[in-house]
């Protein structure tokens, strides 16, 4: 019987699931996902985790509880750094230790450290260590990793072309890599926007684990699409443009997400062709507390683009969230409609 490896549907699942799933399945393991986030998972997570942690980390604990009795291994790699000279987040770097010391009676955790802060070569070291749980053959590990890398690259390029990870991942199959339905078609299918409303281009900034978990952000993406909004995310940005823009900062950002968000904003503000910016953050997120403030200052200083911050935690009410989104969208639409009626001579 195949070894069962559980991947909790939280945090970096939304970024690396195709890579991990392909790699583990190529090595003969059976990958088991936890259920979609639901009330039970959220409640259990909140109950078991320390109060001060942020919402996505609490939800992750809930997913681990959901999985722990049906798998042989839990796959929670320690993501210290996923890009050169940058870190991810202290909480994610310490995640396997948090989980291990909070939840009792766990199956063995695969907690290999992935740290390519100094050199890309460390990635191969980590891959070898993960692979050694399943096979002794380095050749087989290398082959599996290469294949997984290809799938991940395809996934990444589909996202860069405007697809959202949540749309792809829900129907992700290893033998079906057809991520291609054009964004236009997809948007028309999934949106029931009112007729006659123009399409709004809105940049939405947020960690993938907040943005694509429709339970914890209360269907934000669906709601925006229903309002005839074309979503742009930071993952769609070109890496080169981001790097070029972040060079103008006084001090380089040492968080992966911070650099990407900062670069995207600087680019967007300069181009000035979007209708609004939504920043989705979870309460207590250390990185967002700084990045969001820096971005807000930049947007206010350099442009007139409307900007809103939506904060989510386990107590967020859906009604309040809806009101804020609707008000924001209405404000943009009225502005578009009425502002051109105002005389140029003010």
């Amino acid at each position: 019987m195949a070894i069962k490896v559980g991947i909790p549907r939280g945090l970096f699942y939304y970024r690396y699931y195709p890579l991990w799933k392909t790699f583990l399945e190529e090595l003969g393991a059976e990958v088991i996902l936890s259920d979609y986030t639901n009330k039970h998972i959220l409640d259990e997570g909140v109950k078991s985790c320390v109060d001060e942690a942020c919402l996505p980390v609490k939800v992750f604990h809930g997913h681990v509880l959901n999985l722990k009795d049906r798998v042989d291994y839990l796959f929670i790699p320690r993501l210290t750094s996923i890009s050169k000279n940058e870190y991810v987040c202290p909480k994610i770097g310490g995640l396997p230790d948090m989980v291990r010391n909070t939840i009792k009676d766990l199956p063995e955790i695969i907690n290999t450290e992935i740290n390519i802060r100094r050199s890309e070569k460390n990635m191969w070291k980590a891959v070898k260590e993960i692979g050694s749980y399943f096979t002794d053959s380095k050749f087989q590990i290398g082959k599996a990793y290469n294949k997984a890398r290809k799938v991940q690259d395809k996934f990444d390029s589909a996202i860069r072309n405007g697809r959202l990870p949540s749309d792809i991942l829900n129907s992700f199959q290893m033998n079906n890599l057809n991520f291609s339905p054009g964004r236009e078609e997809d948007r028309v299918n999934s949106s029931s926007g009112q007729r006659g409303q123009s399409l709004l281009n809105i940049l939405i900034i947020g960690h993938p684990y907040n943005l694509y978990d429709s339970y914890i952000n209360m269907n934000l993406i669906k709601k925006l699409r229903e309002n005839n909004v074309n979503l742009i995310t930071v993952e769609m940005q070109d890496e080169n443009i981001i790097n070029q823009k972040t060079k103008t900062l006084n001090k380089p950002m040492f968080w992966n997400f911070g650099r990407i968000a900062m670069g995207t904003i600087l680019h967007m503000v300069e181009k000035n062709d979007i209708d609004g910016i939504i920043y989705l953050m979870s309460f207590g997120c250390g990185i967002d507390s700084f990045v969001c403030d820096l971005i807000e200052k930049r947007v206010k200083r350099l442009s007139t683009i409307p900007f809103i911050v939506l904060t989510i935690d386990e107590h967020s009410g859906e009604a309040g969230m809806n009101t804020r989104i609707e008000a924001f969208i209405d404000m943009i639409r009225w502005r578009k409609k009425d502002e051109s009626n105002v005389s140029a001579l003010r």
Partner: protein
Amino acid sequence: MKVTFPHLGNLYVPIKAMLDDLGTDYVVPPFNNKSALELGTKYAPELACLPLKITIGNFIQAYEKGADTIIMAGGWGPCRFGYYYEMQREILNDIGYKMDMIALDVPKGSFKEIVAGTRKLAEGVKKLAGGWNINKILKAAINTTIISCKMDDLERLSFKIRPREKNRGNTNEIMKEFHNKVFSTYGSSEIKKLIDDTGKKLLEVETDKNYKPLRVGIVGEIYTTIDTDTSFNIQERLGDMGVEVCRPVTISGWIIEHILKGGLHLPRDMRFAEAAKPYLGAMIGGHAQETVGNTVLFAKDGYDGIIQIYPLTCMPEIVAESILPSVESDYEIPVLTLIIDEMTGEAGYMTRVEAFVDLLQKRRESKVIEGRMVLSRN
């Protein structure tokens, strides 16, 4: 140019001596106080950690006293402290306080970035020292390190004397006098003499030699543990309750281990990392590893209890907090976690500390009786 710097416990003592020696004009911001925190809370992002808010308050209050340049250290993550000086620059700029920032930051990145960073750092040092007098700069750096070590020794001594004193309040009086006198000294030699004199005075305090105090280890985030004004003077108050405290994370430790040895790539004292290994396998930033490791070391050393202090939303300490219950049950040592932000009420905070000390007292008594404990309701 009038320089100012953020408060961090006794950090102002070595920094003041250094600036005196360099002959730079400076303003010491008012000691951390409520209005500094209120100013910081008003201007800093809501979810930023407490030290950022307090330091912003420090800078605004120093600006009002005439300062126009800030000295601030930096870092390279993942803890938010590394980006502090950028945040402070942006915030102060936005609210119209025009202040220069001298960032003492080890340059990193690509070769080009390192060259640019080194140049910036050198310019900052030159500005601070008023020229390239290497002899003067080195001397000032060495004296700063020595004074910070002496200062920490003095503090440690006060932690030992305070719970044992016969007349409550003697130690506090001496320390208060010391802090008042610091401002009437000039240069490193006078400060050194003052510290030595104060140490002698502390040793003359009448103490109870037979008293065996409870011993409590203080761990947690560096700012809130070192800065007694932020932690509601917990170390002094525990001392007044007759508890001996020990705090392994110190300013001199930070300067020697982190800046000097870290900067020069010398081997560092990693006992805490070794001890933390079974619980926390890697460096995750901040002082999480120190917190977990020192808790283990304290437990092995036979301490009665541990108090962890950190500011709300501090990322590394949240990880440490979720690990500490395991250490607590493995080594049977009680741990109290205290979280500080601008809303923390002093009364509720002290009630928890007092209840914790009572618990430790009861634990010790029940250990003495050993199994012959009688439940009070029987």
